[in-house]
C-alpha cells in the first residue's frame, strides 16, 4: 500500500512538500495556540500592572477606529490562499485528523503532543535568551531536562504536572517584534496559514534549530511532519469551525485575530 502510494506521488510534489513542511511543520500556525496558553499568570507577575492595564484599555471606540492593524496589499492573492487553505482543511486535514482521533487513544495523542513539544525547546530557549528573559530560559532548560529524563524522552510532561514549570511559546518572529520590528505585510501562506513578512523571516530563522530539519531521509521527514500536524490538529478540531461560524467576513476575522494574537504573544 505505502509503496504504491509513494510511486504515485510526482517527484516535484515531494520536493515542494519537503520544503514547505520543513519550513514549519504545522498548519494554520497551529501548535502555538496550545503551548501558549499556560502563560497568563506568569505574565501578571512580571509586567507592571498599570502598563498592562492601560494597554488593554485602549479600545475606546472613537479614537481607535481608523487604526489599520496590518497592511494588506496582497489582499487578492491572500484571499486565494485563504480559500485554498480553507478547502484543504475541510477536505483533507480535518477528515484525516478526525479519523486519527477516533482510532488513537488519548494517551498516545497526548504523549506524542508532549514529545513534539519537548523538541521545540531549542527554538524557545534561543528566543527567550534573545529577548533577555532569563527566568523563562531557565524554565525552558529545566523542563527539557526533566521531561527528557524523567518524562522518558519527552513523552510525559512531569515538568508541568509535578514541577509546575511552564514552557513559553517563543519564536523568532516574536523576538523581532520584541525589538520593535512591525509585521510588514500580511501574508497567507498556502498550507501553513496566516503570517507576515516579519513572522515568515522568523520561521526561516527558527527552521535552523528545528531538530526535524536535520532528518536526511525525505520520506521520514515528511512522515514526521505529517504526524505532528495531524496529532496537533486532533486537539484543535472545531476551533477553526467556530471561528468561521462566528464570522461575517472570515478572511478579515482571521487576519485580525492573527494580528491581535501575535501582538499579545509579543507583549508577554
Amino acid at each position: 500500500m505505502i509503496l504504491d502510494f509513494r510511486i504515485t506521488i510526482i517527484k516535484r510534489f515531494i520536493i515542494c512538500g519537503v520544503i514547505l513542511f520543513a519550513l514549519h511543520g504545522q498548519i494554520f500556525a497551529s501548535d502555538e495556540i496550545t503551548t501558549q496558553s499556560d502563560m497568563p499568570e506568569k505574565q501578571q507577575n512580571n509586567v507592571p500592572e498599570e502598563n498592562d492595564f492601560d494597554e488593554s484599555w485602549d479600545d475606546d471606540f472613537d479614537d481607535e477606529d481608523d487604526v489599520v492593524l496590518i497592511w494588506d496589499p496582497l489582499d487578492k492573492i491572500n484571499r486565494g490562499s485563504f480559500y485554498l487553505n480553507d478547502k484543504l482543511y475541510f477536505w483533507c486535514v480535518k477528515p484525516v485528523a478526525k479519523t486519527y482521533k477516533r482510532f488513537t487513544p488519548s494517551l498516545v495523542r497526548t504523549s506524542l503532543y508532549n514529545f513534539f513539544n519537548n523538541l521545540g525547546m531549542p527554538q524557545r530557549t534561543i528566543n527567550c535568551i534573545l529577548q533577555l528573559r532569563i527566568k523563562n530560559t531557565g524554565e525552558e532548560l529545566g523542563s527539557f531536562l526533566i521531561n527528557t529524563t524523567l518524562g522518558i524522552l519527552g513523552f510525559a510532561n512531569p515538568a508541568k504536572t509535578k514541577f509546575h514549570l511552564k514552557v513559553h511559546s517563543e519564536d523568532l518572529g516574536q523576538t523581532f517584534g520584541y525589538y520593535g520590528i512591525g509585521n510588514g505585510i500580511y501574508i497567507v501562506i498556502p498550507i501553513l496559514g496566516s503570517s507576515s513578512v516579519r513572522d515568515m523571516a522568523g520561521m526561516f530563522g527558527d527552521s535552523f534549530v528545528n531538530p526535524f530539519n536535520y532528518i536526511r531521509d525525505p520520506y521520514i521527514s515528511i512522515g514526521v511532519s505529517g504526524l505532528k500536524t495531524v496529532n496537533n490538529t486532533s486537539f484543535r478540531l472545531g476551533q477553526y469551525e467556530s471561528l468561521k461560524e462566528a464570522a461575517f467576513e472570515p478572511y478579515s476575522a482571521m487576519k485580525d485575530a492573527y494580528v491581535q494574537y501575535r501582538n499579545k504573544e509579543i507583549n508577554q
Partner: protein
Amino acid sequence: MHLRSQWSDKTTYSNIIGEIIMKKWMTLFSLIYLTCIILLSPALAKNDAMTDLKKSIDEVIAMLKDTKKAGTPDTKTLLRQKIFQMALEFFDFSEMSQRTLGKNWKKLKPDQQKTFSDLFARFLANIYYNRLEQYTNQTVKYLEQRQHGKNKALVKTVIATQNNEIPMDYKMLKNKTWQVYDVSIEGVSLVRNYRTQFNKILRKQSIDDLFQMMKNKLGQFSDL
C-alpha cells in the same frame, strides 16, 4: 534615701504620663483604623465586577449541568430561552454594538441603530449558546480584576481544559450590575474583531446589506 524617693516619684509620675499618652495614641490609632475600615468597606463589598461575573458564570454552568442530566428536547428549548435571558443580563449589548460599529455607529439613524443592536444581540447570544453547548467539564479560574475609573473593570480568567489553559478576559461596565461589553480570548478581542469585519463590509456595502447578511447568518442557527 531622699534622692532615691525623689527619683522613684519622678519615675512613677512619668510612667503615668506615659501611660496616658499611650492610651491616647492607642485610641487615636484604633479610631483611624476604624474609619479606614468603614471608608474602605464599600470598595471591598461584594458588588465588584469579579463577584458578579462569577455569579452569572456559576449560574449558567449549573444550568448546563442540570439539563445535561435531564437531556430531553423540551428542556433544551427551555435552556435556550433561559440562556438568552441570562445573556441579556450578562452582556451590555448596546454598548457592544456601539463599540463594534465605532465611527459607523454615529452615521446611523436611531432606528437603524436599534435594528443593528437587536440583530447583533441575537447573533451574539446564539454564538454564546453554541459555545456553551460545547462545554464539558472545564473549570474557570478567576485570576484577578482591575478597576478603571468608577464604572469599568477588567476581569482576567482562565479556562482550564484537559491539557491547556485558555485565557479569557472580560471587560465590564457598571450599570445596575456589572455587565460584560467585551471578551478577549487568547488576547483576541471580540469587539475589535467584529469591528474590523464590519468596517470592511461597510466600506463597500450599505448598512441594509449588512442587516441582510446578519439575518442570513441568524437563519443558520435554530431560533432564539
